[in-house]
């Protein structure tokens, strides 16, 4: 999970030794979803941050050590994914909206 996956955002310019980065892409049927919002919730479910995805579906957070939930909102979809973050590493995740929508 901690290795950079294909299409991952460049971490150039970020001191990753001091940050617990969570980043990835939001996809709809495998294609980047540019009009989605990703919310970062802490271990108690409390809101911590939110970003809109870029045109390429990318998002990034600077979290802390521990378990986090990514709640992705897009027109007609809401998906929760749990991730672990560690200071000094980059956690990469792809979030597929369609697969989750089918699972609901």
């Amino acid at each position, binding site marked *: 999970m901690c290795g950079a996956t294909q299409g991952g955002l460049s971490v150039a310019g*970020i*001191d990753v030794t*001091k*940050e617990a980065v969570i980043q990835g892409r939001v996809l709809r049927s495998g294609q980047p979803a540019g*009009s989605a*919002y990703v*919310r*970062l919730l*802490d271990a*108690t479910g*409390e*809101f*911590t*941050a*939110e*970003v*809109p995805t870029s*045109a390429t579906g990318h998002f*990034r*957070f*600077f*979290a*802390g050590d521990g378990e986090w939930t990514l*709640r992705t*909102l*897009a*027109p007609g979809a*809401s998906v929760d994914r749990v991730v672990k973050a560690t200071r000094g590493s980059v956690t990469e995740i792809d979030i597929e909206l369609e697969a989750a929508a089918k699972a609901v």
Partner: protein
Amino acid sequence: MSRQEVLVDADWVAAHGTDDNVVLIEVDEDTTAYDGGHIAGAIKLDWKKDLQDPIRRDFVNQEQFEKLLSERGVGNDDTVVLYGGNNNWFAAYAYWYFKLYGHEKALLLDGGRKKWELDARELSTETVTRPATSYQASPPNTDIRAFRDEVVAAIGLKSMVDVRSPDEYAGRLLAPAHLPQEQSQRGGHIPTAVNVPWSKAANDDGTFKSDDELKKIYSQAGVDWDGDIIAYCRIGERSAHTWFVLQELLGQKNVKNYDGSWTEYGSLVGVPVAIGDEPGTN
């Protein structure tokens, strides 16, 4: 104030956004968002370039605010409808400026840009220009703005609401988690301030919760409705959102936004700081 006087929904904006006396204004943290598409007819205010003094750490003064709004074509009698990203943080921050400088008819679009997008409503990339005006601002109303000395004096005496996330309040994070965490100031919170994250006041889609729900949230946190209330966050924009909730939605008259917030307080020499999840003592 009541909800109907300060909030509009997307249907209202769709119906009245291009009326003669209505000015839609988008205010974002990511100032490129507007350029990628905005609500038809909306102009942009850049929260940093337009709303901050370029040299001193302060926001635009009365003359600068007058010049800005005159150039952008906002009139004193216009109904200003503000919206933006980040669940309206920066739109609420701009709304607070408009009130600080005495603008009468200001509204927020409930849910802001996010709700508009999640509802798959149209965005326009057309350039919007408005004819210049001669905007007259009132002297700043400091009844709604708190400064650091007042905040230090309020420890243990007045209700203070730290509206950052629990991890920022406790000192485990130094900034909202969409920003890098390296900061110059110390982590923690102002002793005796309670933590009610701004997000408690909003639904996932960015719209505000009902008045009853809101009242309950702050009451449970121990906010004293009969006394003065000071809200703060990191740089004053999330606390403008909570200021909007307390003063404009719930009608409290004694609420101040401490816009110096944690980036000022956490850098002060000699002031008390509490860390961890509890408010702490004075």
